[in-house]
């Protein structure tokens, strides 16, 4: 655990990337960033002209090896902070962040595998940091990603995912399927987890991130398949958010 004090620092947005109609990646210049582990998050603090402030947490999407810090933020319709970050913010804007935060939902190549990543919607973000870290390190740790999304157009980083080497990627599309879709088309269940693998006998390290109900379902499913609870790391976000 790096012990750099977790202090607020002002950052500038260097680039805004459209991921989906509802989500944007903010690429940030963070002078003096102490470094992070894949899976960690930051706190963001926005300040209105009259001094009113709002804070929220967002997962880091970039790998520790990347020169800039990237956050992917999905708009929550009745949210307070996400509609601003995923809507208003332009290159050159400034706000405050602090971090990195979180020491449990993290993966380094030295932690080994096999790696089983299960994402619901924007729960992909911290898992993407792990896949990017793995690619940057040219790690040969076996990795699988099961990604549940409403439709293909809701999937972040689609082109980059398609280019990743040595990662078995499985999509399940719960609402909208392209014509001729041959992938999964239902919510993640035990049968799907069995097919995606790895089996509990291979002792995989699992990271599950998504909405609460999704994470409960997947984590319960993995436990039912015999995976030891201490090999299943979870990060849940409720319907509430920013």
């Amino acid at each position: 655990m790096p012990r750099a004090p977790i202090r607020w620092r002002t950052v500038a947005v260097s680039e805004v990337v459209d991921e989906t109609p509802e989500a944007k990646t903010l690429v940030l210049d963070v002078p003096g960033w102490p470094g992070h582990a894949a899976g960690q998050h930051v706190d963001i603090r926005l300040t209105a002209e009259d001094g009113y402030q709002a804070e929220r947490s967002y997962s880091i999407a970039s790998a520790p090896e990347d020169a800039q810090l990237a956050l992917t933020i999905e708009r929550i319709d009745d949210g307070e902070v996400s509609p601003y970050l995923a809507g208003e913010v332009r290159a050159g804007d400034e706000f405050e962040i602090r971090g990195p935060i979180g020491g449990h939902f993290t993966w380094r190549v030295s932690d080994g595998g096999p790696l089983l990543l299960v994402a619901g919607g924007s729960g992909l973000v911290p898992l993407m940091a792990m896949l990017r870290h793995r690619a940057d390190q040219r790690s040969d740790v076996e990795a699988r990603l099961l990604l549940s999304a409403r439709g293909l157009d809701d999937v972040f980083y689609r082109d980059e995912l398609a280019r990743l080497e040595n990662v078995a990627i499985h999509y399940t599309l719960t609402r909208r399927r392209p014509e001729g879709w041959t992938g999964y088309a239902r919510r993640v269940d035990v049968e799907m987890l069995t097919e995606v693998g790895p089996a509990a006998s291979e002792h995989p390290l699992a990271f599950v991130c998504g909405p609460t109900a999704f994470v409960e379902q997947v984590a319960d499913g993995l436990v039912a398949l015999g995976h030891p609870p201490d090999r299943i790391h979870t990060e849940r976000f409720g319907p509430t958010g920013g």
Partner: protein
Amino acid sequence: MPISRGFRGRRAEVDPTRVPPGQYVVRDFPVLSAGPTPHTPLDEWSFTISGAVDEPVSWTWEELLALPTESITVDIHCVTKWSKLDTTWKGVSVDTLLEGVDTEGDYVTAWSDGDYTTNIPLEDLTGGQAWVAHTYGDEPLEPEHGGPARLLVPHLYFWKSAKWVRGLELMVEDQPGFWEAAGYHNYGDPWKEQRYWSD
């Protein structure tokens, strides 16, 4: 601090004296936990006070329910920034559980199913400040919210209110728990915004 161009915010219509700095008020009840939800059958469940005590003491589920139950209405504050006001619980006061327990410890490690621990000074668990809660609203506490029973220490950030709690270990020396060892604040006072270790 920099002004966030065009940010207005959506100010909640709540009493500002009830919402600690950096928090926002929610109506739902978000869930945060680090691993799968444990499901311990009630006939295998027990609650134990151990550690630096003359004699460990423990209760079965039935015995816990037979202890005096208090109704509690409190505001809760999660380190991930949501606060929920006027939550209602039923449970057993830690004062009741500690009656007759002699200890030289000044600290407590609360431990839970799923290998979760959190550390709290003993003086923060006594004097009507903490409960082992088994009912939320009028319903048995759901597993994803920590049922069958969770610690309830509403004056500290909510990670101190250990879900799936199974016991309190009295400690002579303070021992950082799960999140406390992972960079979160050792004490966690929301009114001082003690989120992370360096706050």
